[in-house]
């Protein structure tokens, strides 16, 4: 499946991934276009996080190919893909317990930092500027998600909802070209989910690739223009929210059981 139009987005083609005898992804293809919020849904264990891991370089599929902005991602590990401008959040919160919430978000800016090893130990004017700029961006990201007031708290003192939002703040703080969010609304209450939806919509720019994995169907239907449905490691449907709602396979495997989830 080669698509000329898609070459400026994040593209996965024919990805297959197996762990031992367990086939987790079979021939999965996906096109994430810039300027479009793409959703990925599917039952538990469908392989959504695994596909995420393939896109962010944590897993390498046995077959298939991915590219970003026309350049192949073949053989690139997670750090190199981060350097290409791809960031992600983690389904199981990945906060460092020693760092404050603000510092946890600051780490997301590591690749943007300009201070060298000398200024890591000795304060210098340029290091101070770099620090202020990074803190400004991290605070802006926390503000965007409405959790700036918790900036100086430790993760262990905060509710999971706040940590979830901080995870997203960290992914957006570096102003990346592609953002992959793994269940960003898990553990959020209704108000937080609404705020998150608004924040993600505000975040959208014409050149940004945004992928959201969610169980919350209302959120996905409201947020996304393009939705992919994964079931048992196979992509069973893709289309607009209306098309997905009407798709017989989707109704059978997913919406049928979970329509009021």
């Amino acid at each position: 499946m080669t698509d000329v139009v898609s070459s400026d987005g994040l593209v996965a083609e024919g990805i297959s991934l197996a762990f031992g005898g367990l086939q987790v992804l079979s021939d999965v293809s996906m096109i994430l276009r810039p300027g479009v919020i793409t959703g990925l849904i599917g039952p538990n264990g469908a392989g959504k996080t695994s596909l995420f891991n393939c896109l962010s370089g944590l897993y390498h599929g046995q077959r298939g190919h991915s590219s970003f902005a026309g350049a192949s991602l073949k053989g690139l590990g997670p750090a190199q893909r981060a350097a290409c401008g791809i960031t992600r959040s983690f389904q199981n919160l990945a906060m460092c317990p020693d760092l404050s919430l603000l510092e946890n978000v600051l780490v997301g800016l590591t690749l943007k930092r300009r201070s060298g090893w000398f200024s890591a130990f000795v304060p210098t004017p340029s290091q101070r500027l770099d620090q202020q700029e990074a803190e400004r961006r991290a605070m802006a990201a926390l503000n965007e998600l409405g959790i700036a007031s918790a900036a100086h708290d430790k993760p262990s003192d905060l509710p999971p909802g706040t940590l979830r939002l901080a995870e997203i703040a960290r992914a957006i703080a570096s102003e990346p070209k592609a953002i992959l969010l793994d269940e960003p609304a898990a553990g959020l209450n209704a108000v937080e989910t609404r705020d998150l939806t608004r924040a993600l919509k505000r975040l959208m720019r014409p050149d940004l690739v945004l992928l959201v994995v969610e169980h919350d169907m209302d959120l996905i239907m409201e947020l996304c223009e393009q939705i992919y449905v994964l079931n048992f490691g196979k992509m069973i449907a893709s289309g607009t929210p209306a098309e997905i709602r009407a798709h017989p396979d989707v109704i059978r495997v997913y919406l049928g059981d979970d329509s009021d989830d």
Partner: protein
Amino acid sequence: MAVSDLAHVSKAGVPARAGHVDLARLSVLALVAALLLLPLLAGGFLLYSLSLCFANALAVLSVSMLVRYGGEVSIGHSFFVALGAYTVAIVEHRLGISIAVSLPLAALLGAGAGFVFAFPSRRLSGIYLAVATMALALALPEVLIGFEKFTGGFEGLYIAQDLIPGVSKALQHYYIALAVLVAVSLALAHFRKSAQGLALLMAQAQPRAAEAMGITRSWARVSIFTLSAALASLAGALTGFASSTVSPNSFTFFSGVFLLVGSVVSLNGLSLSAALVGGAFITLVPTYLAKAGDWVPVLYGVALVVVTLVANAGDLRRFLPRGRAR
């Protein structure tokens, strides 16, 4: 940044809580002031012991730094300490130059040696890395005796040159070691807030998430080991300077273990006071327990076990190979 910032790094990642900040800062300032004034009252032997204590505190910091920022244990840091001490001695003997040059040179050589060791072993962790560092410590006496021409063999070398001519040796040793210790504590307080410091803490707590932020595991491991070795070597340079001599006896396998004991006793703290506790423990205890002779390692062993179990039971996991999960 002021000396008062030292209070911030009681533990990497646990800044003093708002209400306690002033008290903590004041007590650190008071401690530094007391140490500055002490030579007015104290006699030669106490000054000598304290100079060694400051140098050892730096060596303990180098191990604690590796534990805090790298999550790793080294029992072979005596190798890097010896490298620093012998750098000072050999530079003086061969080139006739004082620590003004050999102190920074020691830190650089330590960084180089740390890098050379860390790069091939960057995939090792836990007990495997600890054993690899042990090999360094075990090889050390052989190396020192093998290169007799440079190291003076069993006899070792004397270090006699002053940094500041005209000032008594005891005072020089004391104040220079103290100044470097305070400077390093300040630098470590600053490091905790730096981009690199944050990245290392994240790489240790959440290696996969850190990778996705561009912080690779190899970068983290090689960086922290290089830094830690540089600090250990700097500490060794001061140990040599403060004791006026270097010999293979001062760098046995046990000195590497003692450094780890010092780090555990100070709860792997990176503050000035934690370093002093660790340094004092491994300096003063053997001096005053000299009569116990061969029992000193046993006492250390007991202290290591007791402190580890009582204060920091969770840290025992650090000695085990880490699971691959998360």
